[in-house]
């Protein structure tokens, strides 16, 4: 029996949270250091995943499978090249986030850290779960800590924002739950056994009409999470009101759950419906890109600007993964990481400003660079990473995304390329108004430059930005096999459908391959061979 490394990574934060319950709330520094320690340990443990990850196989690795509730509801976790990095991103950001709220969060430190850890467990769980039930449990469970984080430590309209966030997200996920039920039932009807294992579901070939509904249900949940236009309005509110750390996690990781969901669930399960909806989705993404960018341009609040920039960026990511080719999806995943880093970092920067000035309105700043040269440098790098400057991470992702899109649909790519311009426009303009120009607000004169702690948490991000920009091979190579497997899977299923249509077969309600059939089927065959 190997060490259950994935479970450790997932539940270590939870254990931390439980531990914290029993620590006196007055020992704030102990809590903080302990939290930092735990989060760093989690990160270190998660590095084990990276170094022992076998890039040669699309199969999930570090798999742990155990009976849980039964009837298909099992504990089943594992990671592949797609989820690996999202897990790492989460564990990487957590120490940073905890450091960033070291002084920002002054009251209720204990609860704050507990919720942070709960959140982390929830997020990692989403990325590692291979059982739909388990996935859904984490998916929903993670809402609660986020709800508290925004609601307790948020800004003036925190309650509105947090309620909107939770309800909006739940709207989608509840419908997804219905779809999960539906599939659960279909699988049972077809095979006589219960399963919620996603690999079993991958094998199902669903009637196209059914697929459409299921895809809509799954898609809505993910689209809200991403968020895709026009489901984006919760995001600016949530971001603006959330505490810095909350915004960071929200932007960096939470939004990725949506894109991840598309990749992991919606694509391989409903390829036919996907094809049907591709035009609509593509248009929505494009609207999201341009619309988000334009809205970002005119925001008066820095955080809300970054939030809308997220809408735009996530639009590009979605567009890229909808390209359904290796370049697009790898680019999309890469861009998810980039967006996680750069937008996360931007929020950290905004947080640093906020901590000094207690305002986030652009007009209250101006000339900050003069007072805070080191900060200015960090902010600049983060901004440029978000702009997609070559040499930094954003570029690699962006160019791959756009290339993938281009390969699939030139018109969309041409429209999508506007992101290059828009991102520069809104971010540089923001940078100009906040950091440059003469100092107009006397408060700015009292700003102190970054302290060691702030440098300490920004530096790893910046280093990673450069690393990812200069030597992306470190990251790309481990996802190749998984992504190409995904692409093939979608295409092969698609092929089966066209075949069925051609032969004018009566529409099968569902077709699950039995053991014998598996040998004939290309998907199953390869599965066997690869084992």
């Amino acid at each position, binding site marked *: 029996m190997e060490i259950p490394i994935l479970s450790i990574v997932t539940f270590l934060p939870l254990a931390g949270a439980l531990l914290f319950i029993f620590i006196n709330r007055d020992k704030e520094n102990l809590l903080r250091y302990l939290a930092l320690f735990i989060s760093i340990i989690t990160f270190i443990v998660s590095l084990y995943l990276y170094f022992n990850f076998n890039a040669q196989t699309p199969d999930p690795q570090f798999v742990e499978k155990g009976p849980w509730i039964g009837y298909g509801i099992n504990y089943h976790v594992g990671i592949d090249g797609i989820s690996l990095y999202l897990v790492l991103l989460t564990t990487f950001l957590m120490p940073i986030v905890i450091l960033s709220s070291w002084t920002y969060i002054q009251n209720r430190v204990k609860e704050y850290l507990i919720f942070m850890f709960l959140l982390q467990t929830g997020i990692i769980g989403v990325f590692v779960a291979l059982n739909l039930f388990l996935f859904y449990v984490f998916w929903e469970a993670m809402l609660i800590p986020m709800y508290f984080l925004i609601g307790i430590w948020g800004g003036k309209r925190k309650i509105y924002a947090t309620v909107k966030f939770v309800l909006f997200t739940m709207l989608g996920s509840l419908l997804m739950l219905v779809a999960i039920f539906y599939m659960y039932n279909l699988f049972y009807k077809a095979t006589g056994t219960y399963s919620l294992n996603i690999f079993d579901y991958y094998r199902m070939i669903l009637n196209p009409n059914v697929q459409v509904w299921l895809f809509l249900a799954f898609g809505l949940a993910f689209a809200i999470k991403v968020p895709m236009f026009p489901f984006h*309005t919760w995001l600016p509110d949530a971001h603006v009101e959330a505490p810095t750390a909350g915004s960071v996690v929200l932007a960096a990781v939470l939004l990725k759950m949506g894109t991840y969901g598309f990749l992991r669930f919606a694509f391989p399960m409903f390829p036919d419906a996907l094809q049907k909806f591709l035009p609509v989705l593509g248009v929505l993404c494009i609207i999201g890109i341009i619309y988000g960018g*334009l809205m970002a341009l005119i925001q008066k609040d820095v955080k809300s600007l970054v939030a809308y920039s997220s809408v735009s960026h996530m639009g590009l990511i979605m567009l890229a993964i909808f390209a359904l080719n290796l370049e697009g999806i790898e680019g999309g995943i890469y861009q998810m990481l980039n967006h996680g880093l750069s937008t996360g970092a931007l929020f950290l920067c905004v947080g640093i400003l906020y901590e000094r000035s207690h305002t986030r309105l652009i007009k209250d700043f101006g000339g900050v660079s003069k007072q805070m040269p080191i900060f200015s440098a960090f902010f600049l790098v983060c901004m440029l990473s978000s702009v997609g400057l*070559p040499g930094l991470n954003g570029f690699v992702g962006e160019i791959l995304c756009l*290339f993938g899109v*281009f390969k699939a649909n030139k018109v969309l790519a041409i429209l999508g390329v506007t992101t290059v311009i828009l991102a520069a426009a809104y971010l540089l303009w923001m940078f*100009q108004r906040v950091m*440059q120009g003469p100092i107009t607000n006397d408060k700015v004169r009292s700003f102190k430059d970054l302290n060691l702690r702030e440098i300490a948490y920004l530096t790893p991000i910046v280093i990673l930005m450069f690393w990812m920009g*200069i030597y992306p091979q470190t990251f790309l190579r481990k996802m190749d096999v998984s992504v190409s497997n995904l692409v093939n899977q979608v295409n092969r299923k698609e092929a089966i459908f066209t075949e069925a249509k051609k032969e004018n077969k009566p529409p099968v309600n569902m077709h699950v391959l039995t053991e014998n059939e598996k040998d004939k089927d290309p998907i199953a065959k390869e599965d066997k061979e690869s084992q």
Partner: protein
Amino acid sequence: MTDYFWLIPLIPALSTLILVLFGQKLPKKYVSFQACFAVFASFAISVISFIGLLQTSHEHLPIIKNLFSWIYAGNFQADLALQLDPLSSIMTLVVTGVGFLIHVYSVGYMADDEGYTRYFTYLNLFTFAMLILVMGSNLVVMFVGWEGVGLCSYLLIGFWFDKHSAANAGKKAFIVNRIGDAAFLLGIFFIFINIGSGEFSIINQAIGSGAITQSLATLIAILLFVGATGKSAQIPLYIWLPDAMEGPTPVSALIHAATMVTAGVYMVARMNVLFTFSGSANSVVAIIGAVTAVFAATMALTQNDIKRVLAYSTISQIGYMFIGCGVGAYAAGMFHLYTHAFFKSLLFLAAGSVMHALSGELNMQKMGGLRKYLPLTYPTFLIGAIAIAGIPFLSGFFSKDAILTSAYANGQYLVWALGIFGAVLTAFYMFRLIFLTFFGNERLEPAAKSHLHESPPAMTIPLVLLAFFSIVAGYVGLPVVVGKNLDFFGRFLEPVIHKAHEVHLSLGTEWMLILISVAVAVTGIFIAWVFYIKNPKIPPNLVARFPGLYKILYNKYYVDEIYNTLFVNSTIKGSEIVYDHFDLKVIDGAVNGSAKATNFFGKILSYFQTGFIKDYALIFLLGAILLLGYLLF
């Protein structure tokens, strides 16, 4: 001898890194020494590599050094690879050579600035990015440099970021460049899709073997050229360059005159096979270049800001380079690029020296008679002006003439005529500049006059050196009329620039063309002399006679304003309207509205909950009635 060419960009990069990390703690002297030395080292290696290249046979070109695999995903594969061939070699020489001189100049120019270290960091970073641009062996790496120099340009224009105008100009430069970059990116994608690689050598081969159709080639070429118009400040994306003068003057010299802005020309030359294959794209390049050359020159006529005049002049001169490329004379275009680097940076540095002397004064109307105060600046400035004006025996003459001759030879008479017209204007505005600055009455502000002094040696030595090069640089590419095989420059580039078709003009025609261009240059100078020395009343009279024309020229055809209303303000206004009325009211309104509707239904339903037993019984009975009714009917 070419083994270590890949170190050329890495040395400045290393220097940048050191300055970023430790710069704030290092002494000023060390900082400047390191920065200059890094560029000098690069220059030295460039020279060595250049010599090595001369000894390498054509078959071994280009020499490629693959540093590592960079972005690999599916069909999109790009190595981080550098290449050395004649084209890049020339560019490295120019970049590091001129760059070195400007670094040295900056030591003096920026001596008192508080952002000293930051300045040199940026400058080194720029050198690195520019070298990456010119040495990249594929489009993606080139794009890295392309954007990198854009970034440095942004940083350096906005170097004095606490000035609104500077910050604004930097941002404007970056964004306008990005518009071009977006098109450039699309061009790259087209190439990747259709050819499967971004390596220049592979692209050239593929085009040679007919991998793409001519119309596709045109499309790609135009897209790439749009990128070039952004970077090289051509119509319609030139508007950022005049504003870029907000940066320190050495920066204007290095980035906005000598190197970065010519990247577009370099790129077109680099992709010459594609452009030639397309044909129509070439015409576009030529026409845009010619129009820009004249257009920018007219705007330079009325400006009073020295640096702005020079900026428009740069735009105009780059237009000439594009004419060269557009008419197929890539070597001529590159040649002009090369000579322009010297004399334009000379002009800028000299202008900087003037400014330095006058404590930052830029307005020509407040100068005059500076000849005697600035004994070194004046002659060097004059040399630069003569060179750019196209007076024979100086570098500008040879290169410009080569371009115009090629244009004529290719039958692009309109382009040629525009070029000639531009040349008159060039000569005029340059000497207007000279006369207003160094001749005539002193119109100095008293405060400025008290500090009047010649610049320190760190600044003047580069001036002298550049002046020297402005004179002699042209002799590596002598025209045919002088001798058959004296165009060393063109021949050196031959392995890179595949001549599609060569048209030979008769010697007589060549001479005639030379004479015409000399004549127009002289005419321009003469008019300037008449206007500003002989009879200084003429310009005000002209202004009085043609106020409309003057106003248009003075206000640069209102292009900035038009762009602002057309693109910038309308976008912002439109976005604001959409935000207020659509995002908040419609989309968010739908979200909040559904919540409100839900609440409203709740309210209605709770009205039934009156608290009276009777009403409860009523509801109960109604429920029973409905229930039974449902069962019965």
